[in-house]
């Protein structure tokens, strides 16, 4: 199961990276005589109101969407894990203070913050990355902190401390490697969520600016032609759902493998 998801995702990732080769047409090329063609023939999945090939746009769109999702989760995970692990290990008032701040951010509505950031920093891929990373960091901090707290009590950590290892070394060589399992599993699931958030922003018109294709943007553009050209909506959404599904299932599978305890939030 995990292997199947991984395979799908690798295929999607490869298609994104080699978009130029995979996509049969130029995603930005207007082809007015051929506009609004249903799927079939020249255009595998149809053309949009400018005559652009839907399939090519989906393939190219995956680049931006995946970039944003991956970068934001990467940033959030790195920051959050460092933060959580360090404060958990160092303990004391630093830990308490950090925990309070993290708690304040925990339920933060992702989309609301992303909208605010886009208003402030303009619509660009990197803005979305920052916004998503900001919301993800507390979650990861919490998770890694919990792991670090339990690892801290292990004998090998005490032994390392007795041998005179510096806190940095202990965190780096002992605590972090053992925290990585659940963190990785959650992070994978989060890529899917970040993907949906990026598409939601694009759908609202607050994502990556046109005419560059992104899945959310395509859904937004296709909306006006919903009745006459449903393929403009169906296919990008299908691509999105499939990708998110793969990430979610992969994350679940990883969690089954890597997270020994199985918190109530997993299943």
């Amino acid at each position, binding site marked *: 199961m995990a292997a199947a998801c991984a395979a799908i995702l690798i295929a999607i990732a490869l298609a994104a990276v080699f978009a130029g080769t995979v996509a049969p047409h130029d995603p930005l090329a207007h082809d007015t005589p051929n506009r609004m063609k249903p799927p079939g023939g020249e255009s595998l999945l149809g053309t949009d109101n400018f005559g652009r090939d839907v399939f090519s746009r989906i393939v190219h769109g995956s680049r931006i969407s995946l970039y944003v999702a991956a970068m934001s989760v990467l940033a959030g995970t790195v920051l959050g894990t460092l933060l959580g692990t360090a404060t958990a290990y160092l303990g004391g008032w630093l830990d308490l203070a950090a925990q309070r701040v993290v708690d*304040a951010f925990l339920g933060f*509505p992702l*989309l*609301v913050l992303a*909208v*605010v950031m886009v*208003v*402030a920093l303009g619509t660009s891929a990197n803005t979305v990355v920052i916004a998503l990373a900001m919301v993800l960091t507390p979650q990861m901090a919490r998770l890694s902190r919990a792991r670090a707290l339990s690892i801290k009590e292990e004998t090998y950590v005490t032994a390392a401390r007795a041998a005179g290892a510096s806190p940095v070394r202990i965190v780096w060589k002992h605590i972090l490697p053992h925290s990585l399992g659940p963190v990785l599993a959650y992070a994978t699931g989060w890529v899917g969520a970040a993907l949906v958030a990026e598409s939601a922003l694009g759908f609202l018109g607050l994502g990556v600016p046109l005419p560059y294709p992104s899945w959310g943007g395509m859904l937004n553009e296709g909306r006006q032609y919903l009745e006459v050209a*449903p393929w403009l909506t169906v296919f990008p959404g299908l691509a999105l759902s499939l990708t*998110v599904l793969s990430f979610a299932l992969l994350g679940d599978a990883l969690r089954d493998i890597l997270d020994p305890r199985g918190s109530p939030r997993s299943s």
Partner: protein
Amino acid sequence: MARYLLWRVALLALSTLVASVVIFGVLRVLPGDVAIGILGGGGAPHSPEVREALREELGLNDPLAAQYGKWLWSMASGEFGGQSLVTGRPIRSLVARELPVTLLLALYAVLLSVLVSVPLGVLAAWRWKRWPDYVVRLATIAGQAVPSFWLALLLILGLVLVFHWSPPIVYTHPWEDPWNHLQIVIWPVLLLSWEYSSYIARVTRASMLDVLQESYVTTARAKGLPERAVVLGHVLRNALPPIITVMGFQLGALLGGTLILESIFGLPGIGRGLVTAALARDYPVVQSMATLLVFAMLSVSLIIDLVYTVADPRISYSTRTAT
């Protein structure tokens, strides 16, 4: 109990404050100049004097802390940040009009989700590894992976093509025209519940499975209690804390959903208001509405926790440690 309540309210205030600082900070520390944005980013030339005058008028030259203080006071006193930059209308009236809509929507969605997904989660745990379990698990995964706005579009497509349905245009409050209100909100609420329910069903199932391992369950069965009493009376009641916790956590996702679904279905709520303001770069409205949304969400989360604390006093301690 009173101490717990005080603690939670303090936490609510702190969280909202943190959120307001973040939102304010993000918008004020932005690279662009608000005054330029207003006077015409379209390239229309304007003199520096005009820009300076506007900055003075908007209070942009005051120290940042003072601006924040003024805005915070305005929020607390019900002014909600003054006027919209685009329409000039007081934000207060926007909020008064839009907040009830969103709150109602969120309330419907939460109620519907709980009513549907808790039984489903119980069913899945009870019939573990048999077909009801797999069906429910499949549904929850779909709920989390398939974006609600896509589903909304597909739904609309289906309704229009197959049933020749056209959405009601004008929003009415439930006390004005119940039937119209129902027609307007039913689809958005269903879609809003889609994602939220999947989280709740999932955690219900997981929590139930955890509790089913406990020794007191075996005892209850050994005592000869009917299975139904065991599952509902003992297992479910003890499985509730993580469910309540997740309900609070996922409110943020629910709120994000209202942003999108209100926009799609044209409901005059705060979500759509925020999006419209964002598209128009209407900074005051964005600032105030975003903070209000966060506050509303935290308040609902608090209420959810408190309701449960009333039902089971022990919980106040376990939810504290869980959070």
